[in-house]
């Protein structure tokens, strides 16, 4: 079967084994300080989550994102959540709302502003939330969703991200390394 892509609106995402691109790009954290992905690297690996404030899928998953992120921090995984959305498109994705949301949800990890959206572009991230987990050597070992049921936390059967993180901490390769879910598309800022 011939598959013809008529437009290439979706960028190529990282593939397993890739290292984090744009890892040295400084981004403003909630405390106003500049932070890069490389600054957050943990001894057991690094978790990068593209997220935002306005998206219903993010909202549905937010408490679980806080839980898995906070648990990762406690296990030697560096965690950084990145908002690449243009707040001009969504005022709810502003820095102030990020601060508010982090407080409400108890994020114990950095939540930073990708002010040009170029970090998301470099990752080939397309939607929120979208997680990228790198191992001790900085290689991508998991890419995808938080779990298999955004809508109903009580009906989750597969805790993909938590399982991948636990595997990594145990020195194993995650059993499931790539997952997908519907999500809000990232609202990229216009290119400079």
């Amino acid at each position, binding site marked *: *079967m*011939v*598959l*013809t*892509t*008529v*437009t290439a*609106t*979706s960028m190529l*995402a990282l593939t397993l084994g890739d290292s984090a691109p744009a890892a040295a790009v400084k981004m403003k954290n909630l405390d106003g300080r500049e932070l890069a992905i490389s600054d957050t690297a943990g001894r057991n690996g690094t978790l990068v989550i593209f997220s935002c404030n306005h*998206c*219903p899928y993010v909202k*549905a998953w937010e408490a679980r994102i806080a839980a898995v992120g906070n648990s990762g921090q406690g296990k030697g995984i560096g965690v950084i959540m990145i908002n690449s959305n243009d707040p001009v*498109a969504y005022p709810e994705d502003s820095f102030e709302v990020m601060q508010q949301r982090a407080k409400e949800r108890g994020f114990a990890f950095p939540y930073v502003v990708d002010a040009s959206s170029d970090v998301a572009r470099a990752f080939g991230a*397309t*939607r929120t939330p979208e997680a990228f987990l790198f191992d001790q050597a900085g290689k991508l070992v998991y890419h995808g*969703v938080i779990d*298999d*049921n*955004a*809508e109903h936390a009580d009906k989750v059967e597969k805790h993909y991200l938590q399982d991948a993180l636990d595997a990594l901490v145990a020195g194993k390769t995650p059993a499931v390394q790539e*997952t*997908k*879910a*519907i*999500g*809000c*598309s*990232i609202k990229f800022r216009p290119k400079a």
Partner: protein
Amino acid sequence: MVALSVANAARSGQHGCAPRAATHGAHFVSLVTALAMLAAASTACGRREGSQPARSSAAAAAALTPITGAGVKDLIAARRGRVVLLNVWATWCDPCREEFPDLLRVRRELGPQGLDVVLISADFASQLPQVSGFLSRSGADFPTYFKTEKDEEFINALEPRWSGALPMTLLVARDGRRAGFWEGKASYQTITAKIRPLLVPQG
């Protein structure tokens, strides 16, 4: 259980003709009244597929039917001979809502030449009242669908290249060949430019 019934509905519904699908769907779509189902059914099946879509002023509450990835495949297979534009959207997705009027316009204008438009909402079940409201406000007076399956199964059944971002659009040629796939909103001009070559009768 739901998935099974839905697949059956899609299978027996053939060209998406509303009565059967609505009968099955009614068990699950409590918000769509039986009356609305009947109205939608008569609209959808009172015309031949591909005839000028009925533009009823009573456009409110056309059938909204649950569907799975397998159901979508069956539905596309049943439309062999027609060009199918399949669009997955959600009420919370701004670009989806922005694109919606153009999809309805494309359907109105190119339906008579052989285009079917299949709209599938990816909203959470708790948002179905908003989905119905949006559809009727938009004048979508033909049967549409909502996803009942887990995201990943649904995504991979429809298009393995799909990241999950919305809106997502697939074009299927008359011979069932996958003729287009894109994520994100497209303009009326872009959409029609992609569809028109596919509508040329096959010789």
